[in-house]
């Protein structure tokens, strides 16, 4: 039986973090989770041994947290998402995602944390026309070639991986780069895109996608605790689906649209304060498929419960 653990879960207001917490506490009811978030935590489900705390992400607050509790495990699921490219927002994102992560890692090192699990994203590779098939974890992180505003995503990933190797003898660190996570409890751009009543359906491109259901992602986050050794892992199933087929599968009405005009349309929408991050438009043009071989080595060939089609079926319940 595993030893009792105290876990810090950063980003508890998110659906994925809540599912992960529930999984951990179902398997280990005596473990204790402190869930923090700078967002409102009043909607976090009440679970035995889960303490949600609303906390401003500042150096002082984190230092206080690490002084008060002795954490064995830290889950960092608190990356700021890309809602806008405005300069001030970008600066805030860099401060929170990059500088904030750096501070958390420093505190982990100082306070004797044994395991750190970090949620990065496959967006670090970028949707580029010359992407190879099934990018491995050692592929260059090229997202910022076309979109410099993605700098923080790549920097955060690189800070974590550098820190991971530096401290590999004392702390086991796992950096996960999942493909598109979809589900009814998650609020990301891809889930919103697919589950809306209508969606742009490119007529001039038809890229391929990998999707993972939020439950499977939570399960992998949980298994990262004991089944994954230090390293970076892409997270995706072996299956893939084209955008048009995905829209058909979900039943979302696709509005045929030439992506060559998407940039112009987005600029026009920006004036109305409706903006889709430009880097996401690239994902509607070019594929970015990732290899899951490294994860498969440790979790076995069938580590996902839901196939792509099932995952897409399930977001219809939204």
């Amino acid at each position, binding site marked *: 039986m595993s030893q009792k653990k105290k876990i810090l879960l950063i980003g508890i207001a998110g659906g994925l973090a809540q599912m992960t917490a529930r999984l951990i506490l179902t398997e280990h009811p005596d473990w204790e989770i402190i869930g923090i978030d700078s967002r409102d935590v009043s909607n976090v489900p009440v679970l035995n041994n889960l303490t949600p705390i609303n906390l401003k992400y500042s150096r002082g607050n984190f230092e206080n947290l690490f002084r008060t509790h002795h954490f064995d495990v830290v889950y960092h699921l608190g990356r700021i998402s890309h809602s806008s490219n405005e300069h001030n927002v970008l600066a805030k994102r860099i401060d929170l995602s990059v500088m904030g992560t750096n501070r958390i890692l420093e505190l982990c090192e100082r306070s004797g944390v044994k395991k750190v699990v970090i949620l990065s994203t496959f967006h670090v590779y970028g949707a580029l026309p010359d992407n190879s098939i*099934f990018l491995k974890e050692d592929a260059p992180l090229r997202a910022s070639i076309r979109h410099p505003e993605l700098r923080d995503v790549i920097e955060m990933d690189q800070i974590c991986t550098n820190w991971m190797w530096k401290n590999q003898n004392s702390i086991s660190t796992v950096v996960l780069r999942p493909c598109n996570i979809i589900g009814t409890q998650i609020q990301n751009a891809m889930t919103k895109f697919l589950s809306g009543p209508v969606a742009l359906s490119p007529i001039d491109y038809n890229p391929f996608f990998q999707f993972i259901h939020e439950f499977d992602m939570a399960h992998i986050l949980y298994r990262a605790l004991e089944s994954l050794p230090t390293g970076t892992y892409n997270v995706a199933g072996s299956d893939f689906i084209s955008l048009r087929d995905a829209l058909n599968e979900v039943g979302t009405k696709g509005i045929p649209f030439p992506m060559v005009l998407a940039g112009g349309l987005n600029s026009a929408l920006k004036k109305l304060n409706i903006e889709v991050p430009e880097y996401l438009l690239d994902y509607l043009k070019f594929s970015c498929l990732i290899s899951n071989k490294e994860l498969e080595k440790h979790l076995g060939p069938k580590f996902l419960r839901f196939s792509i089609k099932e995952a897409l079926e399930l977001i219809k319940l939204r």
Partner: protein
Amino acid sequence: MLKLGESFLLSIEDEIKINQIFAELKEKYKDYKDPWGFNLELCEKTLKKIVPFYRSYFKVRVFGAENVKDQSYIVTSNHTGQLPLDAILITIAFLLDVAPPRVLRAMVERFMAQLPFIGDFAAQTGSILGDRANCAYLIEHGESILVFPEGVRGISKNTPDYYKLRSFSEGFYRIALQKKTPILPVCVIGAEEMFPFVFHSKRLARLLKVPALPLTANLFPLPSPIDIYIGKEIPIPAHLEHEASDKEIKENVFHIENTIKRMLIHGLKHRRPFFDTVRKPISKFVIKEFRNKGDR
């Protein structure tokens, strides 16, 4: 006129043959899902539209089909013409004239992969981005790939350079070594004359950010008769590793280059008289040059 029009309709024999080929291919690929979107239904429809041109317009003849076995190859060809029509014709030849029919996955330029409509259509009809990881993936799945080691330099030649092979790049040979896949040399004769008078403005191409910009007198390819020669497979030396030195790789690549050069000389000698005014001076010029230089 009616006869001319009829010759560009799909013959009943070809329709039956294509139906049989695709029934066989659909069975073969029933469990394979392609991450680039290779679409057999679209290929079948497109082939039925193109085959009349293959037969009656370009009057394609295929030699050496018996050299193709039912296995994976890296099919290596000279690159001619100003548009990659030679790739389309070779692909059709491997479907129609080779038994059992083989789908060739042609490598395309990075530039093409990002074009709206064209990139998607090329992917659905079997083309993929020319990238080592992509080639390796396909070979692991039993596919054959079509490479033009001259790259874009092969199709961006000015008229006086027709049928002069550009030096081959070596990447394809490293993949062949890594995957222990034999090379199948192929030579295409006749595609250069589809656009007989060409000028390439490198400066303009750079300005427009395109890999090549041929300026031709005719926008539509002329009906130059095409001969496709399929050579005997060139095995991969067992002792050579894919991380071998450039020198060792180059020796083998030169051998492939020379094999295709010899096939070119043979093909130019035996080609059909169709465009005499263009063909003769070019053929004489090329043969004379090869004789003078001799094989490397």
